[in-house]
């Protein structure tokens, strides 16, 4: 009987001690906010396009950090962004749902624009300039190609054009050899897991 008592007492006392130490540690090492969300946000392309189903890049980052969203919802970021996030989160990569298209910019056909300012209100990065009853124009260098301005336009005068390729921005493709495809095969294999 005494043995049982000793056992219970010692175990209880030890557990209590451990509990107290851990409680103190919890206070000391308390983590404010979610540092992961910021790290993920830094990887996102900031088009603020909402194609992920969240109202912008930051909310999506927060959702991923909180394990509420998958890593593969960023369409404009494409595979590379997905891999970077998966890498950061330490989770298996998943196939990107939609192929990222070539980078686009919006273009307003000025002669058709009625100056309604609806597109200006829709643009998440203030890339459209103009005043009521005036022609609006897109600052091509600021446009993220999110297409959010296309829908609100009452006269459909906004076109999405492929961003012109500059010789300065031209980059060498991978060599066309059998071995060079290993990297791609590896990525495809990861994609196949989804």
């Amino acid at each position, binding site marked *: 009987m005494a043995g049982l008592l000793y056992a219970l007492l010692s175990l209880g006392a030890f557990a209590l001690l451990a509990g107290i130490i851990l409680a103190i540690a919890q206070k000391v090492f308390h983590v404010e906010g979610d540092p992961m969300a910021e790290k993920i946000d830094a990887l996102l392309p900031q088009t603020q396009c909402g194609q992920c189903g969240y109202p912008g890049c930051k909310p999506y980052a927060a959702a991923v950090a909180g394990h509420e969203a998958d890593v593969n919802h960023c369409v404009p970021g494409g595979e590379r962004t997905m891999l970077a996030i998966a890498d950061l989160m330490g989770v298996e990569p998943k196939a990107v749902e939609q192929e990222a298209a070539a980078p686009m910019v919006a273009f307003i056909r000025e002669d058709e624009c009625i100056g309604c300012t609806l597109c200006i209100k829709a643009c998440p990065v203030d890339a459209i300039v103009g005043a009521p009853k005036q022609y609006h124009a897109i600052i091509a260098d600021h446009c993220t190609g999110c297409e959010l301005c296309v829908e609100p336009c009452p006269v459909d005068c906004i076109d999405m054009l492929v961003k012109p390729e500059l010789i300065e921005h031209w980059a*060498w*493709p991978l*060599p*066309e050899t059998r071995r060079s495809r290993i990297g791609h095969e590896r990525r495809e294999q990861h994609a196949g897991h989804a």
Partner: protein
Amino acid sequence: MLLMLSSPHAHGGDTIRVMMLTVILALLPAAAVSVYLFGWLALLLILLCMAASLATEAVCLKLMGKPLSTLLDNSAALTGLLLALTLPALTPWWMAVLGSIFAIVLGKQIYGGIGYNIFNPALSARVILLISFPLQMTSWLVPMSAATPPVDLYDLSTCLTLFFAGPDALKSSLDAISMASPLGHVKTEWTLGVPVEGALAAYNYSYLNAFLGFETGSIGETSVLALLIGGVFLLARHSITWHIPFSYLATVALLAALFNAIDPAHFAPPMFHLFAGGLMLCAFFMATDPVSSPVTPLGQIVFGVGCGVLTWSIRSFGGYPEGAMFSVLLMNCAVPLIDHYCRPRVYGHDGRRV
């Protein structure tokens, strides 16, 4: 047809095939000595290992849908030859075939073929065999250079019987035709309390014999002279650099000299270490295998020193008499990290980088 082809539009003309062939050529002196010592048996072993390696490689290539022309890069032949040279003369034929299959499949093809293996294929097969068949892998046939060789190894039919049917077919036991290797002898005697000098004297050990290759051992590792000729040939042809062999041998010699000076009864002298066992073969042909050794000069020196320390430690303290093979395999594990931390200094950067 217009591929995107980047500069340079000139090439020096080196090929994998020629590099591998160079190593095979460099091994010929050692192979010749092995045939002199162990007669037809050595030749059979070498040919069988090479043939089995090539056949295994062909099957693997076929299975993976790669072009069979890859066989012509000579790497499978080299692996077979290297494996054969590390085997004792008494290795039965099936063990040689098994070893070749291990070397090609587990050692190389499983990692993606030539260039991707992590461990030296021949050595990994050798270690698998050693651990699986410890008796056969540590029975050393008495060579033809001995005063009274128990079997005539220059007789083809005797050798064929021995090779394919084993010693029992010759109405003799393994013990009757085998002897201890110098390393094994010293280790056994030490555990019995006999100091190194005494053990060597009892063995009739002679440095000259060991240098020329008249002591027993694995068929290709006996002759220091033949291996040195091959090594110098490789160095001259720029197939290997001096870093690994030099640092490896120097480390073993230094450690041996140091501890021999402290306690000559326990620790064998440096010359003995350098001439004994598979050290020379490992230093010039195994540790220098480009695929499984570091790329950078500093990394190669670190690699060589690591091999040296491990070889000497295992020989002096370990359960196995010979540590050269293990040490190279162990250092193979560390190659990616060595490569990462031992990069050369980059132009315009000082000292270490992050």
